[in-house]
């Protein structure tokens, strides 16, 4: 992992101001790579069967017992319409903390695999291009390029904002 860090730094070839560095956890969904701010990640778990919640969108898989707390699990592939794959013991659930207002919530998201912790220079983050209504980019907070791969940085709060009004639309 350390090597990886170094190679990133070499790649950028510039002096990086440490104050501008933010860390992201990157993970894969199909061929795409996404990242979430590392401070939002509480833990990484393997997939375990969930208890389904009736009458909610398909991508809200259900709830699990996380040390006594009832935590919802959301499938990001389905959320982004990337098609469904079979869950295997290697399927990963990233448990994220989201804060909407004063309320802190914990939620799990299902991803294909976790790749890396990456250091990103804040100034290198680009805005996501606007695709109009064709592609919804509201929960993408920015794009960054690492080793010529494009990583989409997700805004956790917007992504996991699953309040009642929204569910009613479905």
């Amino acid at each position, binding site marked *: 992992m350390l090597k990886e860090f170094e190679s990133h730094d070499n790649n950028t070839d510039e002096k990086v101001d440490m104050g501008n560095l933010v860390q992201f956890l990157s993970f894969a969904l199909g061929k795409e790579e996404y990242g979430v701010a590392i401070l939002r990640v509480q833990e990484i778990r393997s997939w375990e069967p969930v208890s389904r919640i009736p009458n909610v969108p398909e991508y809200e898989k259900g709830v699990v017992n996380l040390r006594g707390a009832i935590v919802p699990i959301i499938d990001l592939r389905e959320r982004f319409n990337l098609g469904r794959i079979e869950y295997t013991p290697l399927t990963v659930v990233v448990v994220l903390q989201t804060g909407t207002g004063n309320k802190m919530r*914990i939620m799990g998201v299902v991803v294909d695999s976790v790749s890396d912790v990456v250091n990103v220079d804040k100034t290198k983050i680009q805005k996501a291009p606007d695709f109009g209504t064709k592609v919804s980019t509201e929960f993408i907070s920015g794009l960054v390029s690492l080793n010529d791969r494009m990583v989409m940085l997700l805004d956790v709060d917007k992504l996991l904002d699953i309040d009642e009004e929204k569910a009613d639309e479905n």
Partner: protein
Amino acid sequence: MSIDMAQFHQVFFEECFEGLEAMESGLLNLDMGDIDSEIINVIFRGAHSIKGGSGTFGFTSVSEFTHIMETLLDEMRDGRRKVTQSAVNVLLGSVDCLREMVTAIQGDSAVDESRVSEHKKALEIELNGSASTAESTQAPAPVKAAVVAKPAAPEFETISEGWSIAFTPYLDILKTGNDPVRLFRELAELGELTTTANIHDIPDFYELDPEECHIAWDLKLLGTATEEEVSEIFDWVKGDCELEFSEILLKILKPQEALPDTSEQIPEPEIVLAQLAPATVAAISASEPVARQTEESKVAGVKPSSSIRVDTSKIDTLINMVGELVITQSMLSLIGEHFTMNKLGQLKSGLSQLERHTRELQQSVMNIRMLPISFVFSRFPRLVHDISTKLEKKIELKLVGENTEVDKAVVELINDPLVHLIRNSLDHGIEMPDIRRAAGKSETGLIELKAYHRGGHIVIEITDDGHGLNRDKLVKKAIEKGLVDANANLSDKQAYELIFMPGFSTAEQLTDISGRGVGMDVVRKNIQALGGNIEIISELGKGTTFAIHLPLTLAILDGQSVAVGDETYIVPLVSIIESINISEKMLNRIVGKGETFRLRSEYLPIIRMHEIFNVKSVKASKMAEGTIVVVEGQGVRCGLFVDELRGQQQVVIKSLEANYRRVEGISGATILGDGSVALILDIPGLVRLSNR
């Protein structure tokens, strides 16, 4: 010396509420004919400590307000003022107002200034009006007060320029924790303060003990402060110093001692007061609270945590229990370390011990949340006092079983329904004294509020000895309003239950106390939301009893697990009436769609759980293969069609909303023995869902 005072605020608020409660019950217990000075002392002490606390924490609006109350009480305590019913009523009102103020500060919300000023004015009128003051003079005083903008100083009776105080503390004053500088600071708030220190007595440096106070002070306080106000600041140090007050007089006119009987002369200042009070209040509302609000808005977002006072013995039990648990655990791990089959018996007994300890531990933890119901009951003497005075009825309230314990959440939520029921009993239940006499009853009506435990529930009964429910009148009214069919044959119980129908009211006259027909249905709804129910027992001419049954705790629920496909759901046991098996033949369709079946004399709708929850793996597709669970929720009965019944168990209720959101038809979740999550069904929600 920068201690974050905010950490003590919660304690202060709690003490405030306790003090207010003590004041309130004291005021209610005051017997006009025979004044018990100890009660007055209790009330005074309540006001005094609230004032002291609020001053320390910088809640000036509270301390200013309490100050006026305290002045009034002080005069009563010293016997300078007669205790009158009107004064007591004003004080009771002020207690309420104060409670509102403290609640507002606690919740970071704005204090209702208009109410505060209203009560302040009433207090001031009481203070200036009847007892003190030989206020024969002058407008200058109020004008001066307005200039200094001291709304808490209603005493305009002196025309003195201020006070000269000789303050000679004893050597050990500092050891008692008193700080003269603090006193001066408080004095400075009353007016312009000049201090002259007398340092003649200070010994030689080598003999000086820094813990002793050798300084004496001559203080000059200019302003409108009264003797009470000034001497009160020195209350804490009275035993530790020599004090001498003398008034600096502006004119030769001497301020007269308070005389109760000079009231003819005072109409003028009263008018002045009435005009003055709003102005000064406007002045503070403009400056001070705004400043504080902005300050507070910085801390906003930190929710005031609710706290609970726990009996130490309960905590001791808990600690014992944990100790036992640790011992059992170490015993078990010892067995596990070198386990051979012949230790099986030991292991088994160890495990059963563990089970017992765990259960006991759970029970005592739940016990911590239990509060005596007196937390709710203690408010009612006041309510009954106020309303019975208003209605001119004579009513005695009897409390039974105040120490019955119930979960804190239940205590908080049961208050409003109880208030409503008691108001109802006061207003509709108990008759006017003359009617009671004519009916051969004692003139004084009796309302009994009783709480007791019965089989895992708490029962709260509200009994009045009034005229009871009039069955015929109820039915007639219900027919008039079209709530029941004219030919309906209702049992007594069904007839009484009519009062829980929305929009039902039999009172001939609507009063502002009750009878707007929006009460009882809400009462029942609230009680049902707590997982309880309410029933009525009534006898015409003899009285009515409302009995409320509530679960002891909201954290644990008796549940029946049912299987729907691969999924498990929990049905609250309280809402289950019975479970039956029926065959397809017994089904009836209504308009080709809604399924019903006949249970004895009733047609009940069927909710197929698979359909309503979109469960894919269906085991029981035919009626005969599954089970119908007949449930009742908010007065609606229906049959839930599930695959099979599993076990009954107590489940710990977990909130689904904490990390997720509310889901229609689901009231919460729980964790089963195997660690998986099961959802708890919300019967009224399910009925709504199926009606869509």
